[in-house]
């Protein structure tokens, strides 16, 4: 920096502009090299029969079908095959973050999702349980993903459940 230009371009103003440009450049370069997906995750959501949040059924007749919507979000760093498994469970045997419900899978749905893609689909699930009067059960939906390295379905640790009270059908069905 020669003195010849200091009368025209103030040194401090120039330094401030330069500092802003340096910081902006460093930030931009960091954005270019940042990991594309630093926190990969999957998600499952339960919606009512109109595919909206809330207004879920709280009572069902034994033997009836319940219509709900399932939402799945793939925020992994790759496309994947997801499987939703429907189980009926008592409140003591719902899944955890690490273990799926020990109950038998009654229905399953398989969905392929691209990276960062999601889907919502309607399901109609049967509620057939041996009940004492007004049993409280959980309709459980677990999310599994197909692991390409082991070629097997792996529980993601994500699930949703809906507690319903099951009543004997008035028609005796």
């Amino acid at each position, binding site marked *: *920096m020669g003195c010849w*230009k200091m009368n*025209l*371009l103030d040194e401090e103003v*120039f330094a401030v*502009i*330069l500092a802003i*440009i*340096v910081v902006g*450049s460093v930030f*931009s*370069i960091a954005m*270019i*090299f940042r990991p*594309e997906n630093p926190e990969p995750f999957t998600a499952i959501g339960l919606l009512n029969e109109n595919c909206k949040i809330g207004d879920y059924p709280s009572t069902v007749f034994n033997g009836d079908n319940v219509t709900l919507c399932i939402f799945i979000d793939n925020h992994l*760093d*790759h*496309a*994947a*095959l997801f499987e939703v498994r429907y189980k009926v469970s008592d409140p003591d045997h719902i899944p955890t973050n690490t273990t799926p419900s020990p109950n038998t899978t009654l229905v399953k749905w*398989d*969905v*392929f*999702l*691209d*990276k960062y893609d999601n889907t919502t689909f309607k399901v109609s699930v049967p509620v057939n349980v041996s009940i004492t009067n007004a049993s409280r059960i959980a309709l459980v939906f677990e999310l599994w993903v*197909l692991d*390409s390295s082991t*070629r097997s379905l792996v529980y993601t640790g994500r699930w949703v459940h809906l507690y319903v009270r099951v009543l004997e059908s008035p028609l005796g069905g």
Partner: protein
Amino acid sequence: MVLLVVFVLFSQTIQVVFSQGSFLSSNSGDKNVVWDKWFRAYEIVVELSKAGMNISSYLPSLQEAYDYLEKGEYGSAENILDKILPGLTKLYEEKDSFVFWKNFKKVTLAVLIGSFPVLFYFFFPRIYLRIWYKVREKWVVGK
């Protein structure tokens, strides 16, 4: 005698059908072979999408093949897989080159952005001066 001729003709027909192998392989497919093909396609799709390549056009076919496999219709699944696997394999061969050029673009952009402060430091004062003089070149000093 007639029975013997009918039996010979029947056995020859059966032999011809099975020796060509088309009857079984095209309609039913071998369960393990088809599953293996499907998993190979799945592995390729996962690898390619991890690399950032666009594989969305293959997903419906892969889903359809999976649905057929679940239903036990191995022949139909194999037909779909035979159609998509060559394309997927070709894309997989291009993966390394794709990743190289993707990284090359990133580095080039970073170098360009990184050089901006240096260019600004050297050239801005000169450009500023030039503009300053240009704007004032017709100025006349008043009495």
